[in-house]
């Protein structure tokens, strides 16, 4: 199934376009949402996306996306090992740059040198997506309306 995503300009594009990857940044995904023209978080979710950076510049951009993502990632290493977990930190220091990830069931974080990463899979549910305040207000108004109708019937 092809899921439709939207870029910041609101243009729809199929998710599968992300998979072959670069130049993926033509879509202008950013970590932060515009504060002046907020959009529904679900429209911008990276959930399901895969990035395989081919240059240092691309790698740095994907690291920022991954760092801002509120869901688990699967990192595919050049050694073919796959590491699943929540990426909570990145330390960018030239060739010694690394990411820190909390893996389910592991007490401490694991450090992964950036140079060893082949691909970033945004596999986990984006926990910052959906569950909007507007949905809660709609539900609340509906409940109040129903309460009023029940009261007038009784």
């Amino acid at each position, binding site marked *: 199934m092809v899921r439709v995503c939207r870029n910041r300009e609101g243009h729809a594009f199929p998710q599968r376009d992300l998979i072959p990857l670069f130049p993926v940044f033509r879509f202008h995904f950013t970590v*932060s949402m515009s504060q002046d023209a907020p959009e529904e978080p679900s429209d911008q979710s990276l959930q399901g996306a895969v990035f395989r950076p081919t240059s240092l510049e691309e790698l740095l951009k994907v690291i920022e996306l991954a760092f801002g993502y509120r869901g688990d990632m699967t990192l595919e290493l050049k050694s073919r090992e796959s590491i699943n977990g929540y990426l*909570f930190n990145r330390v960018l220091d030239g060739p010694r740059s690394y990411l820190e990830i909390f893996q389910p069931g592991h007490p401490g974080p694991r450090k992964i040198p950036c140079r060893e990463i082949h691909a970033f899979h945004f596999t986990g549910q984006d*926990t*910052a997506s959906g569950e909007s305040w507007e949905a*809660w207000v709609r539900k609340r108004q509906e409940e109040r309306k129903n309460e009023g109708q029940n009261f007038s019937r009784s």
Partner: protein
Amino acid sequence: MAVPLSQMATVVGYVVSQKFKGVKRYPLVLMLEPLFRCNLACAGCGKIQYPEHVLDRRLTPEQCWAAAEECGAPIISIPGGEPLIHPEMPDIVQGLVQRKKYVYLCTNAILLERKIDEYAPSNYLTFSVHMDGLRDEHDLAVCRDGVYDVAMKAIKTALKRGFRVTTNTTLFNDANPQRVRAFFDEMMDLGVEGMMISPGYSYEKAPDQHGFLKRHRTQELFSSILAKRKRRWRFNQSPLFLEFLMGKRDYQCTPWGNPTYNIFGWQKPCYLLQDGYVSSFRELLESTAWEQYGVGRNEKCRDCMVHCGYEASAVEDTFSSWSGFAGTVKATLFPNVT
């Protein structure tokens, strides 16, 4: 008086000693987040959006005590998540109190009555109850009906048991000044020690992105709320910070004033922004590019006027010059004189 004299003396002594030592950046309040799990999902909160295995992680009491000692701040605020969910929270609090830290245990109070026997009243412990306004406003803000009534009952119980209780209130752009003023009256009638107020911060991850206040609107709103302030309202905050909210004073942010420690480590640069983590407080102070944060320096800081960034600025102003000190005295004794 909104704060006991002993606490005030401790804070004044601490700040003056830092000044004498020539310390340029000193912490005032440690924001200790022992867990991110919460029993509410408030619309304006960007703190709890994590996968389950991250929400299951908690700081140990030893980690909390070590952070408090390393940081050295005289006040420790414990937000979260909902701290009362943490099974070792009574131990954490007891250890901090033994270290003579003034602890503000922030809670939505849903679990307070059930857990209150696990805590002992102390001058060093305050329950800081999240109250975002009168019943309608609060229940709407926390996205659950009935929470206001639960919190009110819990506050009464805590006060009856001899605990120090304050409220903390986050205001969004739909706040009605008259309703907020009525809320202040209600809290004072309850007998809380003091109130803390702040505009909400535009968390990138919060579900409600439409409710956050812009800077100018913040100043208008707080000017309306705090104009002709009633004598009986007690605020657990610097009077200069309240003037800052009203637009009477202009401050730059002091992010190191309220450093944050949580399951990821010491958070760069502040309680609200997450720009990375380091493993020690010293590293936080030394490796953070502080000059890149604050109004006019960072887009994410543009509209922020939150107390965790500016309360320390106000305190610094008080102790940095005679005019700041005089301004504090005037704002304390004559808050309505312009």
